């Protein structure tokens, strides 16, 4: 079935399903998701708002707020740790040391009442058990690693700009050399030049440490820039995944095609953008068949009946689209 799971993998997600139960409604945020990531690789998790990207990221660390969140099924394996079976104490040991997370908004993800030095040092104190003085010293070193002068360790978050705060957030995430870094739209709140700086910094640090990374984003440009692999999410499912080349040059899924068609083309500026018609279905009332079928121009009767199977185009490239069961089906997007 799946051929990726063999060599040294950092992350294995199997059949992950997360629901939010709000009153009578059940919001199906993530549905039967499978994903794996090898050491040193960067995975781009792409999808529009509400596709379940952040929920997946939180579920990986069992951080879903309950209530209303419920992890219905699935296993998550990070470096051999079966996350779903661990006690709260063990989870606390793993979070921040084996797996770390960077949040979207650097303006709110730092505690306003502590200096940045103290906030970085806190992780050292907890995970490495070193005294405060030594931890602050290490925190200053870490600040320099992310390009902030060490003497600013004694300043408060409100004295930093957005880009610098995101650097601090990255510093905190990297304190204990995690195996896996989950970055949840780390550059969305920043302007474009700072975005480039932050991405550069993350790539450099990632390569220096041999970390794996999950980059959650809806910007395909960032994916092309920094990722090795891509998984496209739609309505809580992965509709297509593969290497960067698989997805960008040999697009298979109609939804992925739609995403690319709605991007401006730099070579042909007069070309009209083709938006995907309609909206993502309400995650509380997902259709029985393919969730994308109502918006899909290739949809046939086979699409609405049941969930599409996974079709493996190559060893690395998977597409969940029923149309690939038809003979000779291909999408319109020209292969580069």
């Amino acid at each position, binding site marked *: 079935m799946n051929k990726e799971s063999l060599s040294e993998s950092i992350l294995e997600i199997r059949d992950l399903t997360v629901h939010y139960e709000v009153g009578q409604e059940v919001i199906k945020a993530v549905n039967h998701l499978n994903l794996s990531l090898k050491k040193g690789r960067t995975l781009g998790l792409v999808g529009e708002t509400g596709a379940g990207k952040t929920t997946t990221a939180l579920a990986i*660390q069992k*951080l879903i707020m309950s*209530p209303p969140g419920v992890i219905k099924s699935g296993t998550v394996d990070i470096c051999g740790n079966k996350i779903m079976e661990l006690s709260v104490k063990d*989870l*606390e*040991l*793993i*979070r*921040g*040391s084996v797996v*770390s*997370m960077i*949040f*979207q*908004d650097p303006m*709110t*993800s*730092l*505690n*306003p*009442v*502590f200096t940045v030095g103290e906030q970085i040092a*806190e*992780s050292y104190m*907890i*995970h490495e058990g070193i005294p405060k003085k030594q931890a602050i010293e290490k925190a200053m070193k870490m600040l320099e690693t992310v390009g902030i002068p060490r003497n600013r360790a004694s300043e*408060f978050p*409100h*004295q930093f700009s957005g880009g610098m705060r995101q650097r601090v*957030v990255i510093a*905190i*995430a990297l304190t204990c050399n995690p195996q896996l870094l989950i970055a949840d739209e780390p550059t969305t709140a920043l302007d474009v030049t700072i975005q480039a700086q932050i991405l550069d910094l993350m790539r450099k640090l990632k390569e220096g440490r041999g970390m794996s990374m999950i980059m959650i984003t809806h910007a395909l440009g960032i994916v092309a820039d920094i990722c090795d692999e891509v998984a496209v999410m739609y309505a809580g499912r992965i509709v297509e995944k593969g290497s960067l080349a698989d997805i960008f040059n040999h697009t298979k899924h109609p939804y992925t095609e739609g995403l690319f068609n709605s991007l401006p083309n730099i070579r042909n500026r007069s070309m009209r953008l083709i938006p995907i018609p309609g909206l993502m279905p309400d995650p509380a009332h997902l259709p029985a068949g393919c969730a994308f079928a109502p918006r899909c121009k290739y949809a046939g009767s086979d699409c609405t009946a049941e969930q599409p199977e996974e079709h493996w185009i190559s060893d690395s490239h998977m597409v969940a689209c029923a149309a690939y069961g038809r003979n000779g089906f291909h999408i319109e997007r020209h292969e580069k």
Partner: protein
Amino acid sequence: MKNKNIHRLARDAEKADAPILVSERYARRSQSTEIWIQFRRNKGAIVGLVLVAILVFCALFADVLVDYDNDVTGINISQKLIRPCRAHPFGTDDLGRDILCRVLYGTRYSLSIGFVAVIIGMAIGVTFGAIAGYFSGLAEDIIMRLTDILGAVPSTLMGIVIVSALGASTFNLMLAIGITSIPEFVRITRATALSVSRQDFVESGRAAGFSQKRIIFFHVLPNCLSPIIVQTTLRIASAIIAASSLSFLGLGVPVPAPEWGAMLSIGRQYIRTYPHLTLFPGLAIMITVLAFNLLGDGLRDALDPKLRR
């Protein structure tokens, strides 16, 4: 005067010439400086602060200022019921004790009861409030319903019950008033902790592997401090009133001690003929309560970011 104007002109010129520099310096001012600047603008708050400082001074140095055995509790019948005069600015009471000395010494009782009672109430209330605000669900429901029950009993009645059950002593009085001030601390802390707990840095604390205990008490609580500080200050004022009321009823500090409420109670019999017996302790209570309320209001304005600038 002229010199001052020149200074101001120079400062304005500097602002106009180098706006970036000034704003940068402004941004680098620490939070406490900012709060102090805001606080200083409020005249009432300054009056409150000065009054509280004087009261604290009186309480700390009461032993130096007056002779407890002779002036405060020493009975001297020949000097009884003297109206305010040069020797006794506030007059003397029915046992010939100098009222000024007693009022001065009474600061010690009122302030210590106020502080200790509020610290008891705050310690319990803030802990449970923070837990209730951080955990939604069952823990919150249980804590808040218990708080409602505690808050439903009139506080004076509650004080009377606790003091009569445990016996009249200064510490029991503090305990009684402390317990009655728990609900307000629970509510105010829960409300703030609720909004702080939903912020990203709490989530990232969880993602960094911090324990819930650590997140509640080291991350959420420090961000809830300003309303708690304000509440504490205001609550001291009402604790002082509560202490005086209970002492007035004979349920507070044991008799010879110059507690203001107890002094009012003694003076009550002479209120038509010798009003100075009740006037001065009454004034002392009023001024103390006013001082803490002014200070509390000033702190609230200075600490509330919405009211700034």
